């Protein structure tokens, strides 16, 4: 559901006054995008669910600072990206101090596994037998972190300038990230543009 920035501002003003229904409408418009970004970046649905909750609670607390200059979805995705980056930093620290060696989630993919490995062979037959979500995961692994963030945000229908604002990066750099992501994903997913 796409809603205009003016409408976002009206709803945000109502939410500032404590109107939960207004906030729920805003949440509906961005919930899938927030969860998708968190899920694709953390590669863990449980963590993504936590990040989604934290994101919207944070948005509720700071809704007064939303000025309507960008759509609410872009504003809330910025919060999500910051939370995902914090999650990555903490994961990295945990991995460095080896506290996650005896994790209770053995199927969870750790951070070092998400770093693209160009030398890893991916036989075509094995690739075709994978289901769609596994193909997506492998395709994402072929991207650098910045390319991945830009590609996921672009997949939510955001404009280049909005992605640039969220990632605090120049628009030209975002275009370059998307160009590379497009090429690698199309190659990996075997789909033409």
């Amino acid at each position, binding site marked *: 559901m796409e809603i205009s920035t003016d409408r976002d501002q009206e709803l945000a003003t109502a939410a*500032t*006054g*404590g109107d*939960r229904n207004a*906030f*729920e409408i805003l*949440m*509906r418009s961005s*919930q*899938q*995008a927030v*969860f*998708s970004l968190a*899920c*694709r970046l953390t590669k863990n649905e449980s963590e*993504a*669910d936590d990040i*989604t*909750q934290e994101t*919207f*609670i944070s948005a*509720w*607390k700071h*809704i*007064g600072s939303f000025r309507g200059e960008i759509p609410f979805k872009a504003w809330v995705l910025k919060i999500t990206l910051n939370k995902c980056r914090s999650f990555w930093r903490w994961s990295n620290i945990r991995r460095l101090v080896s506290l996650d060696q005896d994790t209770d989630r053995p199927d969870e993919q750790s951070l070092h596994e998400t770093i693209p490995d160009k030398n890893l062979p991916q036989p075509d037959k094995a690739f075709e037998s994978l289901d*769609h979500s596994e193909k*997506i995961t492998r395709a*994402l692994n072929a991207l650098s972190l910045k390319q991945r963030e830009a*590609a*996921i945000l*672009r*997949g*939510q*229908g955001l*404009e*280049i300038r909005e992605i640039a604002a969220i990632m605090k990066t120049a628009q030209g750099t975002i275009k370059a990230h*998307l160009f590379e*992501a*497009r090429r690698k*994903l*199309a190659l990996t*997913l075997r*789909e033409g*543009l």
Partner: protein
Amino acid sequence: MKPEKKDNDLNLFGQLRVEKPEAFWSAQRARILAKLPERRNALRGLPAWTLAPAFAAAFLLVMAWFAQKQPTTPSMPEAEVQMLENLDMLSEMDILQKIPEQELI
């Protein structure tokens, strides 16, 4: 960016969206809404200067209250007034007694 390019991007990068049934999104929203903290008051988020008139009015009220509480000179009890009047009369009587009788005639 041209519209067809954006459409192509949505076709390709749109595959990165996570699809879930509506029940999943509803349950997640319900959990989040239940965890939202209550607003302390409806004034949160307003610029600080909007509170200035309220502070000024409160200040004036406090000043007015203090002014009313200023100590006043306590009124004299009725018995004391009566006693003073009697003393005055006595002193006047003394004066009369000291005047020679001849002068009074």
